[in-house]
């Protein structure tokens, strides 16, 4: 499967919400989309392109904005596809993928607590890796790695 194949299927479904499909080494392609069309894209990728297996959801903090990326695998094409969308840092939320791929559940919980990206309509958005009530989002660039003594104070009183 090539980036052109992805465009051909996805462009009619998403319209202007599809920002482009780029080539990516070792993958079918990298699909950039607007977050408004997230659910449509997930359904199209799973049902029409047969990427039935969602492997990974992650977030990147680019300081001015944040990026959410999804990696899915197709058993028929034997390829991965990378889906990514940008969300503004002040209003970082995107529709959950766990309605389409149940495997997104824990990955989104992790992304929510570490990169501070909220997933709307997530069935169970709780802390997974950090303790309940942990007030920080460690994978943000603004969260600096401290010397242990400073950090002790910071983490102990959460």
């Amino acid at each position, binding site marked *: 499967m090539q980036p052109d194949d992805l465009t051909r299927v996805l462009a009619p479904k998403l319209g202007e919400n599809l920002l482009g499909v780029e080539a990516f080494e*070792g993958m079918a392609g990298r699909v950039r989309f607007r977050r408004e069309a997230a659910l449509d894209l997930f359904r199209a990728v799973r049902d029409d392109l047969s990427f039935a297996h969602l*492997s*990974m959801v992650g977030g990147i*903090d680019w300081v001015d904005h944040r990026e959410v990326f999804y*990696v899915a695998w197709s058993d028929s094409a034997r*390829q991965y596809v990378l889906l990514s969308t940008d969300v503004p840092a002040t209003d970082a939320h995107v529709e959950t993928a766990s309605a389409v791929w149940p*495997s997104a559940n824990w990955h989104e919980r992790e992304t929510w607590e570490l990169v501070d990206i909220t997933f709307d309509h997530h069935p169970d958005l709780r802390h997974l890796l950090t303790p309940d009530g942990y007030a920080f989002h460690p994978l943000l660039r603004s969260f600096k790695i401290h010397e242990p003594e400073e950090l002790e104070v910071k983490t102990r009183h959460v």
Partner: protein
Amino acid sequence: MSEMWINMGPQHPMTHGLWNLRVRIDGEVVLDVDPEMGYLHRGIEKISEDRHYNEVVTLMDRTCYVAGLAWEHLYILASEQALHITPPERAQYIRMTCEEFQRIGSHIMWYAAFVNDIGLMTPFLYGMRDRDLVLDLFQSFTGARMTYEYMRVGGVRNDLPPTFTDQARKVLDWLTDRFREYDQLCLGSSIFHKRCDHLGVLKANDCIAHGVTGPMLRSAGVKRDLRKDRPYARYDAVDFDVAVADGADVTARYLVRMEEMRQSIRILRQTVDWLEHHPGPVMAEHLPRWLGAPYAPVGREGYLLKRNYAKGVGFSAVEEPHGEAQAYVVNEGTEHPYRVKFRSPIFANLSAARQYLVGYRVADIPPIMGSVDPCIGEVDR
């Protein structure tokens, strides 16, 4: 009878690590489960942002401590793609050899721990005895038993010693016989069958929906193995079969893992033969200086060099002993990776715990969870 929640963990013989399985039970029947993770969350993804590319390898060994070399391989593949570096062929064969030996080591560790849970004590002693032979082999060229720090961006740290091929063949011959013994101990025991058959069933559709990979997926009859489907390193050049079973239960997972070890031996015989006859460099040439020389750690002055290097994004997927592991490395033109994200196979396998535990008895939980082979270091990262 009234329902209640009980905690199995974080200190519990079943857990094989540091996590908590909260179980809602009615008498003996499991009604609901809720795994509670994060007790071993060490912030590896965050620390990696503060380290040089080769320094992250140190953390990779500790990410999955029973399959360190497989995780090194995963990270190095993604980094090389992000940094636009191609390793020499011999290094790729050495990495494959490492990964397959690591698969055997990891599966033997699983065998020792899992069969011990069922109540057979002897396999633990047999397993640890044979795993030590594999670790001795690693020790001969990395110097460590578990945390190797062996692979580097652009190759591997040092070449194999001249005695390696003979030693490796001896270990492989020994293990071939021992695996027969393992099967006799387990499959010939009625205790094993009573505690494992038809337990923890997870069908192929559920596996795919919940992101379950590795031996659990293959035990449900899905023939997916990244070494075949998306060959990395030189897996396209070796001949092996994908181990598949169709029971989707604990016994099927046992059969898949045992067959995988036999297939690993088959791969290793080929790679060891290749390594014997193809000497050559094990590090890529023309590496940027800050990546360090092959035999020395990164030089201090290398830290200070401002480099002008192409940006890039690397993605790699490796069939780790536990399943499909993935790494996503963002290179923004500095000495440190901008963002490293890992996908742990057991993370997904445990997230589906509700699917394969609900409806069984409390006493069935240890064999079922043992067949998942949890390694919490890579789940929590």
